[in-house]
């Protein structure tokens, strides 16, 4: 079974990883972690272009690669700790649209994601990304409730 874990560096996504693995550990799964870097606002992109070299310098000083890759790398490490080897993928664009595209391209059987990611943790409603993926995914979706103990 091919399983896609969607991560965004948030606590909710981390819980989704742990819970998903706990439920699926013995199912003989082939796992992939995906992080979608949201499309950058046009005005930010403008200012980033003006100060591109200096902003890259900050990343270099703090000793890490681009954030998108880092989130996926950390999530893969986390899965490894939980006893599951995974492939990592990073896409750029609208998170829901990119997750759906990855599900179609990668022919996954199951998708694991948090009910709400990097947005408001206090908000009990389903996050917009989870909602859209749940509605349109051509595969089964396991939505792990952020902050819930079960």
């Amino acid at each position, binding site marked *: 079974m091919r399983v896609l874990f969607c991560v965004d*560096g948030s606590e909710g996504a981390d819980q989704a990883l742990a819970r998903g693995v706990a439920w699926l550990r013995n199912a003989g799964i082939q796992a992939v972690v995906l992080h979608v870097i949201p499309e950058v606002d046009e005005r*930010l992109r403008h200012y980033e272009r003006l100060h591109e070299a200096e902003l890259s310098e900050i990343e270099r000083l703090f000793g890490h690669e681009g954030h998108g890759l880092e989130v996926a790398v950390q999530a893969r490490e986390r899965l490894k700790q939980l006893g599951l080897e995974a492939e990592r993928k990073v896409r750029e664009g609208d998170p829901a649209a990119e997750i759906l595209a990855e599900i179609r391209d990668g022919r996954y059987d199951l998708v694991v994601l948090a009910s709400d990611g990097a947005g408001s943790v206090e908000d009990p409603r389903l996050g917009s990304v989870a909602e859209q993926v749940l509605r349109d995914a051509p595969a089964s979706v396991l939505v792990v409730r952020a902050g819930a103990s079960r």
Partner: protein
Amino acid sequence: MGLSAVLAVAIFLGTYVAIGMEKINRTIVSMSGAILLLLVGVLSLKEAVTTYVHWETVGLLFGMFTIIAVLSEAGFFTYMALVVAKKLDYNPLRIFVVFPLVTGFLSAFMDSITVMLFFATLTYELSRLLKFDAIPVVVAEVCLANIGGASTLVGDPPNVILGLMLGFSFNDFVIHNGPTAVLAALGAIGVAYVQSRKRLMLGGTVDRNVLVAMDPAKAIKDARLFKLGLGAFLVAILFLVIHAWVEHTLHIPLTAPLSPLIPGFAILILGGNKTEEILRKIDYDVLLFFIGLFVVVGGLEKTGVIKALADFIANVFRHQDLALVSTLMWFSAVSSAIVDNVPFALSMAYVIKDIAGQVGVPALSIMVWAVSLGTDIGGNGTPIGASANVVAYAAMEKHGHRIGWSRWMWLAIPQTLVALLICNLGLALKLWLRFY
């Protein structure tokens, strides 16, 4: 209202709404509005260029942008943040209080967008290693950057417009808006501290090794350029402080726009092979955005729409100075939280100038301070209220911390309200003391 006035209002409103919707680049919107206004014959090109585009504002901003480009190129912002963080011993709670004060101070003299681009990024990097929640820190940094911007002529574009169009100097802003803005900033950081101090720390292992091993001096990419940029910046501020005295006493036409332009161009001459890189960093889009807006708002002025609005306001508030000044401040604040504050400040510059010409209204100066404080600080309320907010919000989102409108407003509105209340009290006190 004649056909010209109807066309001028329609084009102004269309431009204003299109800027607010952010579907099309705002520079393209403002320039299209200007071209349309010329096309329908409300203004001639000669009139637009010679009467309505305020070249002093464009010149001053160009000069300041040049110096900021040099400072950015030299690594000034990263160096500054790292030195401050090291001095604070990388203590998250101290960073939470002091970083916003630093962004407030820097934004009093520099473009707050550039300040926030770097500080949001650096705060995120520090939060990653020190395991604190970057969001309340970044929101407080933005709030104080906008409040700090209110304290001087060059702190925020609305001040440049109001000051230069209506004849108020750098020192006028420092004397009249400075103390109010400082108190407002202290009030806002106090609110931020109460709101988030207990929820600042996140769990996890703190990794200080990278930070302890980090030498802030390594952030300086070019020591010569760093010294030149800092020198030019200090000279620009000195010129802004003394230019009126130099003009009147020594009869040397050192105007406000020339104050940053002279040191700015001096570095370009001395910049050697870095000159082209510096010129590439200047935000020409914003200058074009301003030029377009000057023409669009000029259409309202020429057709008498501004005069009619000013007459209406003066009639409603005649002999009610405090009510007028307070309304101007709060109206400016609410408008600036919803749409871009530059076209608003530009229109208000004309409106309050016309109000000041009437009987039974307060002096122009106190109305300038009210509109300036309102437009600069009101923008804090929403993620799109000012360009610095947009950039900080988007930078955090890019790093995986989507703040969301509700959390932004939950954090920023109490800080903004306290700051505005302090400003309103300050304005009332100034009216009472007749010190404006």
